[in-house]
C-alpha cells in the first residue's frame, strides 16, 4: 500500500494530480473493454478487475515517465485507447495502472503531397477521418468501431476497416511508429519504406496489444478522397458463387473498396433478399424484434420470444437451413473513373457468370448509408437477457467453404450463428461470424458463451485458419494462441524480454504468463 501511495504521488508529480485518478467510478469504468464476456460477468455479479489507478499523460515524455515509474515499482501498466476492443485486451486483469492514451491526440503533420500524416495514438478514429475528409483526404480505414476507437487501438490490435480490400488493414498503412518501450525510451521505428538491416519493427509493434510498449504516434499513408464510386448488389445462388466473384476480382488485381457477401441467414437478416418471404417463422420473428425503429424498448413479450428463439439454437439453426441459399453480395468500387469503371465491369461479368441476380445500386448505397446501424442492435439483445458476439477468422479461398461449414456446425448447438465474408485478398478472405444466444441466468449465459467460443476457435484451428483476422487476441483467444504460434512463441518471449524487461506491459495478454 505504501509503495502504491508513493507510486501515485510520483505519477501525479509527472502528469499532474488531475491526471491521476483512483476514484471508484474511474476504476470501474476502466475495469473492462467491450469484450462481451466482461458484460456477462458484470451481469452475473462478478467483481470487476479494477486497476489501482488510471493515468492520463499529456505528452510522449510523460508516457515515458509513467513507464519508468511503473517499471521501477514493478506495477502492471495497461495501455488503453477507447476500450472498444472486444477481446479483453485492455482489461486490467492483473490490476496495476491503466494508461489512457487519449490526451495524445494531435494531428501533428499532414503532407498531402507525400500522402502521409503523423497522428498521435489517442486520436479518435472518426475525428481523424473527419479532419482528413475536410482536407480532401482519407485514411481509408473504416472499422465499424470508428466512432469509438483510437488510432493507437487500431495499431495495437491490427484492425481492419470496411474498405480493407482497397486500402489494406491498418498494418498496411503504417510508415513508422513512435513508441515508448519498457526502459522508458521514446523511439521512432525505421520507416517501412526505407528498411535497413534488422526486422521491420513496425510489424512487431503493430498487433502487440500493449504488451511490448505504448504506441504514442504513427505516420500513416493517406489518399485523396475518391473521385468516383460505383455500387453493386447481386443475389448470388449460394455463398460459393458469391465467393467466386470476390476471388475473381481480387485475383485479377482489382482493388474494390468493399466486397461483402452475406450468408443466407445474414442475407435474410439484412432484409435485402427480394424473395425474403421464404424466411422461417422463428427467424422472421427474430428479425422483427431486432429491426430498428419504434424504440420504446422491447416489450416483455418480445423479450421472451427472443429468449425462446435464441434459447433453442438447434431448432433455430434448423430453421435457418430451410432458408433459401441465396446470398447478397455488395460491392463498392472507388477511385479514379477509369479504375472504378474497370473494376465494376469485371464484377458485373463475374457475377453474371456465377449466376447472380443483379439488384442494381440499391444494396450498395443502402449499406453505405447504414453501415454502422447494426451495432445499435446490441443493446436490444442484451436488454432481453441474451448476448451477441462476433468472431472473425481467415484462411485461403480454397479452405474457406470447409471452414465456414465447419464453424457453423460446431457453434450451432450453442447459439444462433450467421456470417458474412468481407476483407478479401488475392489469396483468401476472412469470415465474420455473428452469434447470439441466451441462458437461464447470467452464469448459464456465460457458460453457453464460452462453449460457443471454444467450439468456434477449436474448429477454425482444426481447419488451419488463423483464429483472428482483426479483433486481436487479448484474453478471448489466449488459450488458442500457443497452438496458433507453436515455437514462434519464442520470438514473442524474446521480444518481451528485450522491449519490456520489467514485464509490466499488459501482462498476461496474447499469451498467458508462464506459470499463470
Amino acid at each position, binding site marked *: 500500500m505504501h509503495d502504491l501511495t508513493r507510486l501515485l504521488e510520483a505519477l501525479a508529480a509527472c502528469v499532474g494530480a488531475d491526471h491521476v485518478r483512483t476514484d471508484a467510478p474511474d476504476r470501474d469504468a476502466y475495469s473492462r473493454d467491450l469484450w462481451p464476456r466482461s458484460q456477462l460477468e458484470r451481469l452475473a455479479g462478478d467483481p470487476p478487475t479494477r486497476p489501482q489507478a488510471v493515468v492520463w499523460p499529456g505528452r510522449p515524455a510523460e508516457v515515458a515517465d509513467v513507464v519508468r515509474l511503473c517499471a521501477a515499482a514493478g506495477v502492471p501498466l495497461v495501455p488503453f485507447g477507447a476500450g472498444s476492443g472486444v477481446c479483453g485486451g485492455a482489461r486490467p486483469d492483473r490490476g496495476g495502472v491503466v494508461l489512457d492514451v487519449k490526451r495524445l491526440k494531435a494531428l501533428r503533420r499532414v503532407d498531402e503531397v507525400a500522402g502521409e500524416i503523423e497522428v498521435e495514438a489517442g486520436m479518435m478514429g472518426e475525428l481523424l477521418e473527419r479532419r482528413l475528409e475536410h482536407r480532401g483526404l482519407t485514411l481509408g480505414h473504416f472499422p465499424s468501431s470508428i466512432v469509438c476507437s483510437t488510432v493507437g487501438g487500431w495499431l495495437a490490435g491490427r484492425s481492419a476497416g470496411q474498405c480493407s480490400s482497397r486500402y489494406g488493414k491498418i498494418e498496411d498503412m503504417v510508415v513508422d511508429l513512435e513508441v515508448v518501450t519498457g526502459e522508458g525510451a521514446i523511439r521512432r521505428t525505421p520507416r517501412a519504406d*526505407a*528498411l535497413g*538491416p534488422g526486422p521491420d519493427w513496425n510489424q512487431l509493434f503493430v498487433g502487440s496489444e500493449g504488451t511490448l510498449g505504448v504506441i504514442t504516434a504513427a505516420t500513416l499513408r493517406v*489518399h485523396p478522397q475518391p473521385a468516383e464510386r460505383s455500387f453493386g448488389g447481386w443475389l448470388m445462388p449460394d455463398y460459393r458463387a458469391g465467393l467466386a466473384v470476390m476471388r475473381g476480382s481480387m485475383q485479377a488485381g482489382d482493388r474494390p473498396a468493399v466486397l461483402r457477401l452475406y450468408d443466407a441467414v445474414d442475407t435474410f437478416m439484412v432484409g435485402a433478399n427480394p424473395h425474403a418471404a421464404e424466411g422461417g417463422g422463428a427467424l422472421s420473428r427474430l428479425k422483427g424484434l431486432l429491426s430498428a425503429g419504434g424504440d420504446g424498448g422491447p416489450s416483455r413479450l418480445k423479450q421472451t420470444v427472443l429468449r425462446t428463439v435464441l434459447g433453442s439454437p438447434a431448432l433455430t439453426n434448423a430453421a435457418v437451413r430451410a432458408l433459401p441459399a441465396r446470398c447478397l453480395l455488395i460491392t463498392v468500387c472507388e477511385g479514379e473513373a477509369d479504375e472504378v469503371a474497370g473494376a465494376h465491369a469485371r464484377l458485373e461479368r463475374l457475377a453474371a457468370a456465377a449466376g447472380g441476380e443483379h439488384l442494381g445500386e440499391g444494396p450498395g448505397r443502402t449499406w453505405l448509408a447504414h453501415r454502422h446501424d447494426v451495432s445499435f442492435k446490441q443493446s436490444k439483445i442484451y436488454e432481453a437477457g441474451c448476448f451477441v458476439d462476433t468472431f472473425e477468422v481467415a484462411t485461403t479461398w*480454397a479452405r474457406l467453404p470447409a471452414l465456414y461449414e465447419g464453424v457453423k456446425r460446431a457453434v450451432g448447438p450453442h447459439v444462433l450463428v450467421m456470417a458474412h465474408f468481407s476483407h478479401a485478398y488475392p*489469396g483468401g478472405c476472412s469470415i465474420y461470424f455473428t452469434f447470439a444466444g441466451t441462458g437461464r441466468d447470467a452464469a448459464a449465459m456465460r457458460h453457453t458463451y464460452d462453449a460457443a467460443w471454444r467450439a468456434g476457435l477449436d474448429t477454425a484451428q482444426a481447419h488451419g485458419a488463423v483464429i483472428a483476422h482483426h479483433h486481436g487476441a487479448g484474453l478471448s483467444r489466449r488459450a488458442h494462441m500457443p497452438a496458433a*504460434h507453436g515455437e*514462434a512463441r519464442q520470438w514473442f518471449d524474446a521480444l518481451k524480454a528485450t522491449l519490456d524487461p520489467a514485464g509490466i506491459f499488459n501482462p498476461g495478454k496474447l499469451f498467458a504468463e508462464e506459470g499463470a
Partner: protein
Amino acid sequence: MKDAWTPHHDGAVGDLWTGPAGAARLEVAEPVAVARALAWAAERALAVRVVRGVRPPAPRTLQIDVGALAGLVALDEISRVAHLRGGTTWAEAEALVASRGLTLGPVPGCVAETPIMASFAAGERRRPSPAFGHLTDGVLALRAALPKGLLTRSAVAPRRATGPDLARCVVGTGATLGLAVDVHLQVWDRPESRVAAAVRFPGWDAAHDGAVVALRQGLRPAWWCARRRGREVELLAELWGDAGDADAVGRFVDATGGREAPAADAQAWIDARADAADTRWSAQVAAPRGGLAAAARARRGIEAWDLRPAGATLYAPRSGDAADPPDAWAALADRLAEHLRGEDV
C-alpha cells in the same frame, strides 16, 4: 572449391565440412536440419550464410547449402498460393509456377539465383513492384527454423491479428532470429500481354511526380524505375495486362504527363534486369518526395526504384561510404537475438 573443405561428422548435425578459421559447411534437405544447423552454429557462435552450391569458406561462418531443400510442396490453384521450400531459387520458383500458367510477378535478374530463404534473411527489397510488391511481401505463411533448433508453424492466411507479425523476425535479420524453411507465396495468373513504356521528364523530381500521378490514377505497372538519360530522366515501366488492352502504353504516358520515348529503351532495361546480377545497385538511399534530384546529385544516383508518393529509393554505385552507425534499433535487434539464444543479457 571443394578442396578448401574437409569432410567431418558431428553427432548433432551429421555429415559436414570444415574449413580454415572456423568455417563450416552443411547440406540440408529437411526443415528440421536447418533448425539443427542453426542451433549448432549458435552454440559455436558462428555466423550463418545460406547458399546454393559450394562457396569459399569464410571465417567463423557456417554455410548452409539449401540446394536439396528446394521445390514446390504444393500449389493451391484456387487461392493462387504456392507452397515453396526455402532452398528454391526465385528463378526455379517462377519456372515451377509458370508451368501451371502462374507467376510470382517479375523476378529481377539480380535475385533470380538466390534461394528464397536467403532473400528473406536479407530482407530483399529489389522488386518494388506497384502491382506485386516486394518479393517478400506476398507471403501468406512462413515456417521458420529457430536458433534453438525448433520449427515454428503458422496457419496460411492473407492477414491475421494474433499478436505481432512474428514471422517478420526472419525478414531482414540475417539468420540471427531464424530462417524461413518454407513459405506460402501469392502467385498470379500469367499476364496475356507485357508491354514496355518509356516516358521522359526534365528531371528526377518531375519523373517522380509523374509516377505518383499514375499511381493515384490506379495504374499499377508490374515494375518500373526512373533513370538518368542525358539531361533528362526517363521513367521506364513494364505493363502487364489483358491481351485486348491495346492502349495500355498510351494511358500510362498520359497519366504520367511526360513525353513518350521509344519503347525499345524500356525493353532493353527490362531485358537487362532479367539477366544481370548487377551488384552495383546495392547502395540504397531513401529520398523523400521532392528530394530525389538532390539525392541523385549527391550520390551519383543511377536509378530510382520504389517510386511512391512519399519518396523513392535511389540506387547509387557503392561509394565506399562508411557503414551507417549502429543505431538503437540495431542494438535492440542484437539483444533480441541474444534473448532468443537464451543468453543472459
